[in-house]
């Protein structure tokens, strides 16, 4: 289920151009993260994939088929969608929310509800929550229900529009790990939109850094982008310029472990003696957690 954008542009009726001549191939069964500041057109690009927004020109292909020829309602039912603030239907119980799309596509109510319970297990929610209404759940629980709903028809493609943007950092961390775990077993084609570069580097196999008007500043793996920022914009966006990403070993450290500090002198993390050969910009989980800590330290 690869997705291909071919010279896609979108100008809204009020004259604003959200996206201009955007071309990109999103590989199958991997996570691609579109990252950029607000107004870079990332949500517009995401919504073009399920025809919530139709391009003004250019075309989008899913497995080689132009989606302009696929009726939007059917297309949307075949693609999972998870949004910020969960977008759960407040008048339906948790189980019914998860079962929404299967029931729309004619799966019997009873079977859809049973499947919904299994999905709650899958996203780490207690089945006891099935009969509650969304307003009775915490923000993190609502997002988990949102993810379960997105997976309910076992779609090949999952679109995620800043799904963890409105929850606190600790819950966000949990949800991100949960998504990595799920993606490890499910292998969906995930398109994830965020403005948080750390989230992008954590979740993305392929990261697309966007500038205004949907212009691609750089596409690559997190490793490639960190090691070789394509230009000033990217360097600035990923924090390399401010010295957040460039760490050095603190000489005052004693003992086995090595203390790392960033350019501003903030303690950024500790390199375990066992992993001392680890390359900082590598893609191993250790180095990622180092760069995460870097960012927090820099913000402190």
């Amino acid at each position, binding site marked *: 289920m690869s997705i291909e954008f071919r010279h896609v542009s979108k100008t809204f009726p009020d004259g604003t151009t959200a996206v201009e001549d955007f071309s990109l191939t999103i590989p199958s069964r991997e996570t691609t993260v579109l990252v950029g500041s607000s107004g870079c057109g990332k949500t517009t690009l995401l919504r073009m994939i399920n025809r*919530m927004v139709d391009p003004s020109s250019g075309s989008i292909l899913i497995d080689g088929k132009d989606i302009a020829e696929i009726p939007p*309602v059917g*297309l*949307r039912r075949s693609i999972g969608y998870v949004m910020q*603030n969960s977008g*759960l*239907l407040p*008048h339906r119980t948790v189980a019914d929310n998860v079962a929404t*799309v299967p029931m729309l596509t004619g799966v019997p109510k009873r079977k859809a509800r049973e499947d919904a319970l299994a999905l709650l297990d899958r996203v780490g929610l207690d089945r006891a929550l099935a009969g509650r209404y969304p307003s009775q759940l915490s923000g993190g629980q609502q997002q988990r229900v949102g993810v379960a709903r997105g997976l309910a028809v076992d779609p090949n493609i999952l679109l995620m529009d800043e799904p963890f943007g409105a929850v606190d950092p600790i819950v966000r961390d949990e949800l991100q790990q949960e998504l990595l775990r799920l993606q490890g077993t499910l292998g969906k084609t995930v398109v994830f939109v965020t403005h948080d570069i750390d989230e992008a580097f954590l979740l993305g196999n392929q990261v697309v850094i966007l500038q205004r008007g949907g212009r691609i500043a750089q596409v690559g793996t997190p490793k490639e982008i960190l090691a070789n920022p394509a230009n000033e914009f990217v360097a600035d966006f990923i924090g390399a310029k401010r010295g957040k990403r460039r760490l050095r070993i603190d000489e005052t450290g004693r003992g086995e472990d090595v203390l790392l500090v960033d350019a501003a002198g903030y303690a950024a993390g500790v390199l375990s003696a066992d992993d001392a050969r680890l390359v900082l910009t590598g893609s191993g989980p250790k180095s990622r957690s180092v760069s995460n800590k870097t960012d927090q330290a820099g913000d402190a």
Partner: protein
Amino acid sequence: MDWVWTHLDLISSETLAHIGLSVPPIVIGFLVSIPLGYWASRSAVARSVLLTIGNVLYTIPALALVVLVPVVLGLSLLNPGNVVVALTLYAVAIMVRSAADAFASVSADVRQSATALGYSAAQRFFRVELPLAGPVLLAGIRVVSVSTISLVTIGALVGIPSLGSFFTDGFQRAFLLEAAVGFVLVLVLAAVFDVLLTVLGRVLLPWNRGLRPTAAARRVIAQQLPPIGAR
């Protein structure tokens, strides 16, 4: 009080007549206002046009309307249909604004989410927007119900029987007990209708149960208690 016991037949027949004149305007007003209110919530132009028409309608004195309707429709002056038509117009005048607010109170996030899930436009309306507009619609229809039940009494002035006939008759004969009976029964009827609507709301909107009225619903109740005394 003897009058009450000797006139139970009359009291029950006038009460039934009153209910018969009240229910059609409430139901028809509600049904007509749903599409109009939805339209008004989708388009700023439609909203201002429809709400202006509603306001103008609402300022026409009830008695004038009850006399005008038969002239315009060519009905006999004594036809109860006159009262029904006039009160339906008032019901729509009140209810369109409530319905417009009700549909506007459905969050854009939820609407977009429903679209993204693959609801067709019609499914989205009936299964998402209409139920979510429910609490504010309920607030609006409760106002319409009270307003309609009190306004039905106007018909008595042009000879259409209802509980209002007890007012006119009681005043003409300076028999205050009869007027008071009419007055109390109108209040009781309004209260009974309100309770029925509230119960209906609890059954139809289970997710709203136990929650306080939404801010939008409270605003509707506050704004739209009709200025009955003014008319």
